[in-house]
């Protein structure tokens, strides 16, 4: 069973908590699909994705024990 750790930042924490474990998601697209089913409010949020601390801009395959971070933009100053 493949396990992936997901980290949330900013106001995404209010929706999904600071982190969670997901099983058997093979790509970032699959992960997002499952997350949006579990947390519908995520659909209205803007965020960027990093896999193992590297930002990605296209669907990316996930590996055992990798970490996916979801970070929203901040504008405050």
């Amino acid at each position, binding site marked *: 069973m493949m396990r992936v750790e997901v*980290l949330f*930042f*900013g*106001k995404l924490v209010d929706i999904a908590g600071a982190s969670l474990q997901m099983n058997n998601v093979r790509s970032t697209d699959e992960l997002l699909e499952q997350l949006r089913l579990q947390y*519908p*409010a995520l*659909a*209205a*949020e*803007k965020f*960027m994705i*990093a896999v193992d*601390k*590297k*930002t*990605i*801009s296209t669907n990316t395959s996930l590996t055992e024990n990798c970490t996916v*971070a979801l*970070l*929203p*933009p*901040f*504008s*405050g*100053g």
Partner: protein
Amino acid sequence: MNNDQLYERYQRQLILKGFGAEAQQKLLSASVLVIGAGGLGCPLLQYLVAAGVGSIGIVDDDVVALSNLHRQVLYNVQMIGRPKVDCAVEVLKQLNPQVRFTVYNERLTNKNAVSILSAFDIIVDGSDNFATRYLVNDACVLLNKPLVYGAISQYEGQLAVFNVLLNHERSTNYRDLFPHPPKEGEVLNCAEAGVLGVLPGIIGSMMANETIKLITGTGTLLANRLLTYNTLNNQTYELEITAIADTRLLIPATEAVLQQTDYEMLCSSTTVMNEINTTQFNSMIADGSVAIVDVREKDELPVITAFSHLQIPLNSLQQHTAWLTEDTIVLFCLSGKRSAAAAKQLNELFGTSKKIYSLKGGIQQWMQQQKQTV
């Protein structure tokens, strides 16, 4: 100031290993533009001025308010109502009279950005809105200026150095992180979400640190990297920013194009799904064939009895879509933000099969309007 005084003022950093007279000389001949003299701008300005940066520009069109004082530590109660740039320079001149200040008591816009930014070597962004942040980023890429970036939200901060020349190549910029500006309502601002005063103090100080490193060539810059800091648990998370090939196409290639790009519009709610005003809302109520939905939590005030409606809180909307049998759905909440988010969700779900509307200004504005018309 004579050399003895100069030495005495900067003695603690002059004796620092890896810094010294050469680094100090670089600081004294550097010019830095600080955009925004608010929560991030205050600590930034204090440390840049104290460190001896030769020339400093400050852009801000705001005046000091009482609600600023918990985090904008350059100001005091006597300054309330006065322009921030004037108050800041007053205080900073007493800290270090040798620094040359240029103040711009105006909002940075697509029209004045190029002329203001051109006069400085390094740009530091402590602004408080996305329109300015995208404008500053794009102008820095266009003008080949390094940009020190910091931003905060609630208990977290982000920090990076963009567009710096490393091995004859410009490092990644804000568009590589977030290519497109968010629309109003997609993200919180400080006024809605709140912020603890010490957070901009921390992030602003880190921005000053990156600026000083950038000027003096000391240490390793946060180039091609994004650092996040959380004040609640002291956790930091550092990411590598991967360049996105197409982002260059999103950035104006000439000054003329930049001046024609409406950044306020790019970040505003005007292009968000169908928002209706109170008059349109009233005619929808009168229509009768429309589903009116309150997306607030069940026990939220005020309780609405003036018209019949469904109650489906935003966070359980997706589980209750079966209730929405009508072809037209009108959503409302207190201020219009959550209903806009709900409308976006339903738009994605139903596509063109249903017409989805959100009440602009929320039930708050509707009730005010009702009072006025009675």
